[in-house]
């Protein structure tokens, strides 16, 4: 059964959203979904780069009211 892991980085600055995403990836098991939220704009571009570099699957990038949300499948 795949788990959904939430990573809340709203209000966090460089490089925290990337770092916390990586920590979650390390702890996740194959098939888990990681949902990262944040409002640091460079991270919205860079987390997908990290996802690609680590050969993970990018499920979605969404803009919410005052933050973005990225879903990753491990």
């Amino acid at each position, binding site marked *: 059964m795949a788990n959904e892991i939430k990573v809340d980085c709203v*209000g*966090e*600055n*460089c*490089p*925290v959203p*990337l*770092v916390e*995403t*990586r*920590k979650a990836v*390390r702890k996740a098991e194959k098939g888990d979904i990681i949902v990262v939220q944040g409002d640091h704009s460079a991270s919205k571009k860079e987390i997908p*780069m*990290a996802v690609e*570099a*680590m050969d993970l699957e990018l499920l979605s990038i969404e803009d919410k009211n005052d933050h973005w949300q990225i879903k990753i499948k491990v």
Partner: protein
Amino acid sequence: MEDKATLIVESGDYDKLYSAFIIGNGALSMGMDVSMYFTFWGLERLKKGQLDKGPLSKMNFLGLGKLYMKYKMKKANVRSLEDMLQDYVELGGKIFACDMTMEIMGITKEDLRDEVITEYCAVGTYIKEARDSEITLYI
């Protein structure tokens, strides 16, 4: 070539330590292996209680500039150097301490934060790793 970043941290300046750990943690986060070699003034920062004690590399103004920078960083919610070091270790980053610097500056293992140091080494270890690294930086 391996997917690896190798950094020399020669500076003990506050802002340069930030550069080193931000780049190191960024590389780990993008799935690379990272090694940091601490030498000279950089190694001073691995002494117990010294990580954030370096001056600003520019406009330090006897510490006033650094105080202002710390204030601005706190406002921008920048993570502390100590937290960045903990992140670095948690993500599997390696830390090497230069043993010649220890000898020259009279630094012993007891003075250093042994729990975060992977290995005590000399230049050969650095070259061995750096020659396979896609990114090498001297900070």
